[in-house]
Protein backbone atom coordinates (compact mmCIF):
# COMPACT_ATOMS: atom_id res chain seq x y z
CA UNK A 1 0.00 0.00 0.00
CA UNK A 2 2.79 2.37 0.86
CA UNK A 3 5.53 2.18 -1.73
CA UNK A 4 8.71 0.93 -0.13
CA UNK A 5 10.99 3.17 -2.13
CA UNK A 6 9.32 6.26 -0.78
CA UNK A 7 9.83 4.95 2.73
CA UNK A 8 13.47 4.29 1.98
CA UNK A 9 13.88 7.73 0.50
CA UNK A 10 12.39 9.37 3.53
CA UNK A 11 14.43 7.19 5.88
CA UNK A 12 17.57 8.27 4.10
CA UNK A 13 16.46 11.85 4.30
CA UNK A 14 15.98 11.36 8.01
CA UNK A 15 19.40 9.87 8.49
CA UNK A 16 20.96 12.70 6.52
CA UNK A 17 19.01 15.32 8.37
CA UNK A 18 19.95 14.02 11.79
CA UNK A 19 23.50 13.27 10.79
CA UNK A 20 23.62 10.06 12.77
CA UNK A 21 24.35 7.01 10.65
CA UNK A 22 23.47 4.32 13.12
CA UNK A 23 21.18 1.39 12.74
CA UNK A 24 18.72 2.52 15.40
CA UNK A 25 18.52 5.89 13.75
CA UNK A 26 17.89 4.28 10.39
CA UNK A 27 15.17 2.16 11.91
CA UNK A 28 13.72 5.25 13.51
CA UNK A 29 13.88 6.94 10.12
CA UNK A 30 12.08 4.06 8.48
CA UNK A 31 9.44 4.13 11.16
CA UNK A 32 8.90 7.85 10.87
CA UNK A 33 9.01 7.70 7.08
CA UNK A 34 6.45 4.96 7.07
CA UNK A 35 4.38 6.89 9.58
CA UNK A 36 4.21 10.09 7.63
CA UNK A 37 3.53 8.30 4.40
CA UNK A 38 0.80 6.37 6.12
CA UNK A 39 -0.86 9.66 6.87
CA UNK A 40 -0.89 10.68 3.23
CA UNK A 41 -1.48 7.13 1.94
CA UNK A 42 -4.66 7.92 0.04
CA UNK A 43 -3.02 10.56 -2.07
CA UNK A 44 0.07 8.60 -3.05
CA UNK A 45 -0.31 7.56 -6.62
CA UNK A 46 2.24 4.85 -7.10
CA UNK A 47 3.09 5.14 -10.73
CA UNK A 48 5.31 2.45 -12.15
CA UNK A 49 8.29 4.60 -12.73
CA UNK A 50 11.64 3.26 -13.74
CA UNK A 51 14.38 5.71 -13.21
CA UNK A 52 17.32 5.73 -15.53
CA UNK A 53 20.05 7.16 -13.38
CA UNK A 54 22.21 8.47 -16.18
CA UNK A 55 19.38 10.22 -17.96
CA UNK A 56 18.19 11.60 -14.65
CA UNK A 57 21.62 13.01 -13.97
CA UNK A 58 21.67 14.59 -17.40
CA UNK A 59 18.33 16.11 -16.65
CA UNK A 60 19.66 17.49 -13.39
CA UNK A 61 22.67 18.99 -15.11
CA UNK A 62 20.51 20.47 -17.81
CA UNK A 63 18.35 21.98 -15.13
CA UNK A 64 21.34 23.50 -13.33
CA UNK A 65 22.56 25.04 -16.51
CA UNK A 66 19.17 26.38 -17.45
CA UNK A 67 18.60 27.71 -13.97
CA UNK A 68 21.80 29.71 -13.93
CA UNK A 69 21.24 30.88 -17.45
CA UNK A 70 17.75 31.94 -16.67
CA UNK A 71 18.81 33.82 -13.61
CA UNK A 72 21.50 35.63 -15.53
CA UNK A 73 19.15 36.44 -18.34
CA UNK A 74 16.51 37.79 -16.02
CA UNK A 75 19.18 39.76 -14.21
CA UNK A 76 20.37 41.29 -17.44
CA UNK A 77 16.86 42.06 -18.45
CA UNK A 78 15.78 43.84 -15.31
CA UNK A 79 19.02 45.76 -15.10
CA UNK A 80 18.82 47.01 -18.66
CA UNK A 81 17.88 50.67 -18.80
CA UNK A 82 14.97 50.07 -21.13
CA UNK A 83 12.74 47.21 -20.17
CA UNK A 84 12.37 45.53 -23.49
CA UNK A 85 9.85 42.77 -22.83
CA UNK A 86 7.08 41.27 -24.91
CA UNK A 87 5.34 39.00 -22.43
CA UNK A 88 2.40 36.73 -23.10
CA UNK A 89 0.89 33.32 -22.48
CA UNK A 90 1.23 30.55 -24.99
CA UNK A 91 -0.23 27.07 -25.00
CA UNK A 92 2.31 24.25 -25.04
CA UNK A 93 1.01 20.90 -26.27
CA UNK A 94 2.24 18.22 -23.86
CA UNK A 95 3.71 14.92 -24.88
CA UNK A 96 4.33 13.54 -21.43
CA UNK A 97 1.21 12.04 -19.92
CA UNK A 98 1.82 11.02 -16.37
CA UNK A 99 1.00 13.43 -13.56
CA UNK A 100 4.38 13.33 -12.09
CA UNK A 101 6.06 14.01 -15.39
CA UNK A 102 3.77 16.90 -16.15
CA UNK A 103 4.48 18.33 -12.72
CA UNK A 104 8.18 17.95 -13.12
CA UNK A 105 8.11 19.53 -16.52
CA UNK A 106 5.97 22.41 -15.37
CA UNK A 107 8.26 23.08 -12.45
CA UNK A 108 11.36 22.93 -14.56
CA UNK A 109 9.82 25.30 -17.04
CA UNK A 110 8.98 27.67 -14.28
CA UNK A 111 12.51 27.60 -12.98
CA UNK A 112 14.06 28.32 -16.33
CA UNK A 113 14.53 31.41 -18.43
CA UNK A 114 11.66 33.61 -19.23
CA UNK A 115 9.00 30.96 -18.87
CA UNK A 116 6.47 30.30 -16.18
CA UNK A 117 3.86 27.53 -16.05
CA UNK A 118 0.53 29.08 -15.34
CA UNK A 119 -1.83 26.16 -15.73
CA UNK A 120 -2.45 22.71 -17.15
CA UNK A 121 -5.57 22.17 -19.17
CA UNK A 122 -8.09 19.77 -17.80
CA UNK A 123 -7.43 17.14 -20.40
CA UNK A 124 -3.73 17.35 -19.44
CA UNK A 125 -2.81 17.92 -23.05
CA UNK A 126 -1.82 21.52 -22.84
CA UNK A 127 0.49 23.46 -20.56
CA UNK A 128 -0.10 27.18 -20.49
CA UNK A 129 3.17 29.00 -20.19
CA UNK A 130 3.76 32.64 -19.53
CA UNK A 131 6.76 33.83 -21.47
CA UNK A 132 8.82 36.86 -20.85
CA UNK A 133 9.58 37.09 -24.48
CA UNK A 134 6.63 35.92 -26.45
CA UNK A 135 7.62 37.41 -29.74
CA UNK A 136 8.38 33.94 -31.10
CA UNK A 137 6.39 31.34 -29.14
CA UNK A 138 7.13 28.53 -31.57
CA UNK A 139 10.82 28.76 -30.83
CA UNK A 140 10.15 28.67 -27.13
CA UNK A 141 7.96 25.59 -27.51
CA UNK A 142 10.59 23.89 -29.55
CA UNK A 143 13.20 24.57 -26.87
CA UNK A 144 11.04 22.95 -24.25
CA UNK A 145 10.24 19.99 -26.42
CA UNK A 146 13.80 19.13 -27.21
CA UNK A 147 15.07 20.22 -23.83
CA UNK A 148 13.27 19.28 -20.67
CA UNK A 149 10.47 17.23 -22.09
CA UNK A 150 12.75 14.93 -24.00
CA UNK A 151 15.09 14.52 -21.05
CA UNK A 152 12.20 13.71 -18.77
CA UNK A 153 10.88 11.10 -21.11
CA UNK A 154 14.33 9.59 -21.28
CA UNK A 155 14.90 9.65 -17.57
CA UNK A 156 11.61 8.06 -16.47
CA UNK A 157 10.63 5.28 -18.75
Amino acid at each position, binding site marked *: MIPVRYVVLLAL*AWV*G*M*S*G*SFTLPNLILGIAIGWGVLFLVRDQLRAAKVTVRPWAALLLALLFMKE*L*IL*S*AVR*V*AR*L*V*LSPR*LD*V*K*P*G*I*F*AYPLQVERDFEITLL*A*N*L*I*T*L*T*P*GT*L*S*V*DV*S*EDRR*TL*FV*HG*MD*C*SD*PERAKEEIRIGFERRIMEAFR
Partner: protein
Amino acid sequence: MMGEFGDYLAGLLIVVGALFALTASIGLLRLPDVFTRMHAASKAGTLGSCLMLVALALHIGEFATGVRALAGAGFFVLTAPIAAHLLAKASYSAGYRMWEGSVRDELAQNVVSSKKNGQIQGG
Protein backbone atom coordinates in the same frame (compact mmCIF):
# COMPACT_ATOMS: atom_id res chain seq x y z
CA MET B 1 36.67 22.72 7.39
CA MET B 2 37.50 22.94 3.79
CA GLY B 3 40.08 25.55 4.57
CA GLU B 4 40.91 28.62 2.60
CA PHE B 5 39.36 27.40 -0.59
CA GLY B 6 36.10 26.73 1.11
CA ASP B 7 36.08 30.22 2.56
CA TYR B 8 36.75 31.78 -0.83
CA LEU B 9 34.10 29.68 -2.46
CA ALA B 10 31.57 30.42 0.23
CA GLY B 11 32.34 34.13 0.06
CA LEU B 12 31.93 34.10 -3.67
CA LEU B 13 28.70 32.17 -3.48
CA ILE B 14 27.11 34.49 -0.99
CA VAL B 15 28.10 37.57 -2.94
CA VAL B 16 26.72 36.09 -6.15
CA GLY B 17 23.63 34.87 -4.34
CA ALA B 18 23.06 38.27 -2.81
CA LEU B 19 23.45 39.90 -6.18
CA PHE B 20 20.86 37.56 -7.64
CA ALA B 21 18.53 38.44 -4.81
CA LEU B 22 19.13 42.10 -5.53
CA THR B 23 18.38 41.65 -9.19
CA ALA B 24 15.22 39.82 -8.34
CA SER B 25 14.21 42.67 -6.09
CA ILE B 26 14.92 45.22 -8.78
CA GLY B 27 12.97 43.12 -11.22
CA LEU B 28 10.15 42.96 -8.79
CA LEU B 29 10.11 46.71 -8.75
CA ARG B 30 10.65 47.42 -12.39
CA LEU B 31 8.72 44.82 -14.33
CA PRO B 32 5.30 45.86 -15.52
CA ASP B 33 2.82 43.27 -14.21
CA VAL B 34 2.52 40.51 -11.68
CA PHE B 35 3.27 37.75 -14.19
CA THR B 36 6.50 39.27 -15.37
CA ARG B 37 7.53 40.07 -11.82
CA MET B 38 7.00 36.45 -10.99
CA HIS B 39 9.74 35.56 -13.41
CA ALA B 40 12.17 37.66 -11.44
CA ALA B 41 11.13 36.37 -8.07
CA SER B 42 10.87 32.70 -8.86
CA LYS B 43 14.14 32.46 -10.73
CA ALA B 44 16.67 34.97 -9.57
CA GLY B 45 15.27 34.98 -6.06
CA THR B 46 15.27 31.22 -5.73
CA LEU B 47 18.70 30.87 -7.19
CA GLY B 48 20.08 33.57 -4.93
CA SER B 49 18.78 31.98 -1.78
CA CYS B 50 19.88 28.55 -2.86
CA LEU B 51 23.40 29.76 -3.55
CA MET B 52 23.61 31.26 -0.12
CA LEU B 53 22.33 28.08 1.48
CA VAL B 54 24.91 26.08 -0.41
CA ALA B 55 27.54 28.48 0.82
CA LEU B 56 26.36 27.89 4.32
CA ALA B 57 26.54 24.14 3.81
CA LEU B 58 30.08 24.50 2.55
CA HIS B 59 31.13 26.76 5.34
CA ILE B 60 29.65 24.73 8.15
CA GLY B 61 31.38 21.66 6.92
CA GLU B 62 29.58 19.39 9.32
CA PHE B 63 27.91 16.65 7.38
CA ALA B 64 24.44 16.62 8.92
CA THR B 65 24.10 20.36 8.89
CA GLY B 66 25.42 20.52 5.37
CA VAL B 67 22.91 17.93 4.30
CA ARG B 68 20.17 19.94 5.93
CA ALA B 69 21.29 23.11 4.22
CA LEU B 70 21.30 21.38 0.88
CA ALA B 71 17.99 19.73 1.65
CA GLY B 72 16.65 23.17 2.46
CA ALA B 73 17.87 24.43 -0.87
CA GLY B 74 16.34 21.44 -2.55
CA PHE B 75 13.07 21.98 -0.81
CA PHE B 76 13.15 25.56 -1.85
CA VAL B 77 13.72 24.59 -5.45
CA LEU B 78 10.84 22.19 -5.16
CA THR B 79 8.37 24.63 -3.69
CA ALA B 80 9.23 27.86 -5.44
CA PRO B 81 7.87 26.88 -8.87
CA ILE B 82 4.76 25.39 -7.34
CA ALA B 83 4.13 28.55 -5.41
CA ALA B 84 4.73 30.60 -8.51
CA HIS B 85 2.43 28.41 -10.52
CA LEU B 86 -0.33 28.62 -7.94
CA LEU B 87 -0.07 32.36 -7.66
CA ALA B 88 0.00 32.82 -11.40
CA LYS B 89 -2.96 30.57 -11.92
CA ALA B 90 -4.86 32.22 -9.13
CA SER B 91 -4.12 35.69 -10.34
CA TYR B 92 -5.06 34.82 -13.82
CA SER B 93 -8.30 33.13 -12.96
CA ALA B 94 -9.22 35.85 -10.52
CA GLY B 95 -9.14 38.23 -13.43
CA TYR B 96 -5.95 40.16 -12.87
CA ARG B 97 -5.13 41.23 -16.39
CA MET B 98 -1.75 41.11 -17.92
CA TRP B 99 0.16 44.21 -18.77
CA GLU B 100 -1.10 46.04 -21.85
CA GLY B 101 2.21 45.36 -23.58
CA SER B 102 1.62 41.60 -23.50
CA VAL B 103 1.59 40.12 -26.96
CA ARG B 104 -0.64 37.08 -26.66
CA ASP B 105 -2.98 35.19 -24.34
CA GLU B 106 -3.75 31.64 -25.35
CA LEU B 107 -5.19 30.77 -21.95
CA ALA B 108 -8.14 33.11 -22.33
CA GLN B 109 -10.47 30.69 -24.14
CA ASN B 110 -9.54 27.84 -21.83
CA VAL B 111 -10.50 29.79 -18.71
CA VAL B 112 -13.95 30.38 -20.08
CA SER B 113 -14.57 26.67 -20.37
CA SER B 114 -13.16 25.77 -16.99
CA LYS B 115 -15.17 28.47 -15.30
CA LYS B 116 -18.23 26.88 -16.73
CA ASN B 117 -17.30 23.67 -15.01
CA GLY B 118 -16.98 25.48 -11.73
CA GLN B 119 -13.44 24.38 -11.27
CA ILE B 120 -12.01 27.63 -10.08
CA GLN B 121 -13.37 27.52 -6.62
CA GLY B 122 -11.15 24.51 -6.04
CA GLY B 123 -10.88 22.86 -2.67
